[in-house]
């Protein structure tokens, strides 16, 4: 078997043994279900917990199903991204620290296969979790409200998957470049969250940046984003992913000597 296959099997087994492959999807599903349910019970919740004066009447418009799906996306952007980053912050930096890395680095290791096997495993887990979570949300929205058109849902989730892959690539590259897991998490959280804030503050001046992918994904629910902007954004995101992959492989190789024995 080639080296990539062997390393990928190692990653697979590791993710199985530390249960990441189980609990990450479960958490995404939970947040996917919670959003439609809280929206559905909002009037009752306000009634019983809202501390409103006697006889107060609030007319809440019934939210559109697309809006709820977008709210789920908002949850994922905050909690979901933090979970993915924290879960994979140590995949390379932590391995160097714990000593697993020395077992690998003494062998004639192809750092490309080493890095890509980790990337593929994390990517599969991340994208699968998000899809399962969004599908759970979709089903609950269908039961409690109305159906969102399946085609727009698929376009929405497909676009968002590119964003997940970008985040995963950022974490792994940071994990390869930084001396420890905490630093890797700090750098990737800063990149993902501050860049998004910067993009939402100044982003009016440009129409394509990888940070706009979630926004474009949400636009699929209501119709169609501007196609040329959309494709440029996707192309830019894929270019970013490739660049970060090369950077990560290079860094994994360069920093191999920092592994603790």
């Amino acid at each position, binding site marked *: 078997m080639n080296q990539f296959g062997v390393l990928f099997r190692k990653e697979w087994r590791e993710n199985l043994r530390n249960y990441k492959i189980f609990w990450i999807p479960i958490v995404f599903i939970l947040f996917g*279900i919670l959003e439609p349910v809280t929206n559905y019970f909002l009037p009752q919740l306000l009634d019983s917990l809202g501390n409103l004066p006697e006889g107060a009447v609030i007319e809440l418009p019934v939210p559109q199903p697309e809006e709820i799906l977008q709210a789920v996306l908002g949850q994922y952007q905050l909690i979901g991204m933090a979970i993915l980053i924290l879960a994979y912050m140590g995949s390379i930096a932590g391995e160097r620290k*714990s000593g697993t890395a020395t077992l690998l680095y003494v062998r004639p290791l192809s750092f490309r296969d080493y890095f890509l096997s980790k990337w593929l495993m994390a990517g599969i887990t991340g994208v699968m979790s998000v899809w399962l979570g969004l599908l759970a949300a979709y089903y609950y929205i269908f039961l409690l409200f109305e159906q969102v058109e399946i085609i727009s849902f698929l376009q929405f989730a497909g676009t968002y998957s590119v964003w997940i892959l970008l985040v995963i690539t950022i974490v792994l590259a940071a994990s390869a470049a930084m001396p420890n897991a905490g630093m890797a998490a700090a750098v990737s959280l800063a990149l993902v969250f501050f860049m998004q804030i910067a993009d939402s503050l100044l982003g009016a001046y440009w129409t394509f940046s990888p940070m706009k992918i979630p926004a474009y994904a949400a636009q699929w629910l209501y119709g169609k984003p501007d196609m040329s902007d959309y494709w440029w954004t996707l192309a830019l995101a894929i270019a970013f992913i490739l660049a970060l992959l090369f950077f990560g492989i290079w860094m994994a190789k360069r920093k191999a000597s920092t592994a603790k024995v």
Partner: protein
Amino acid sequence: MDQSTIVLLLLPILFIQLGLMIFALVDLIKNPNPNGPKWMWAVLIVVVNIIGPILYLVIGRRNY
């Protein structure tokens, strides 16, 4: 929608929450070297809904 269907809809949330909590607790008990004091994690997992078990799994487990 009648009452029983709504209860059926809410059951998965309860199961997932309880499942995560029990899973995190069992893992904590078996974990010889968690990241931080064991009793603190136990309290966090039980008291803080949803976020507690997740925090333990991502930070407390040292799974890297």
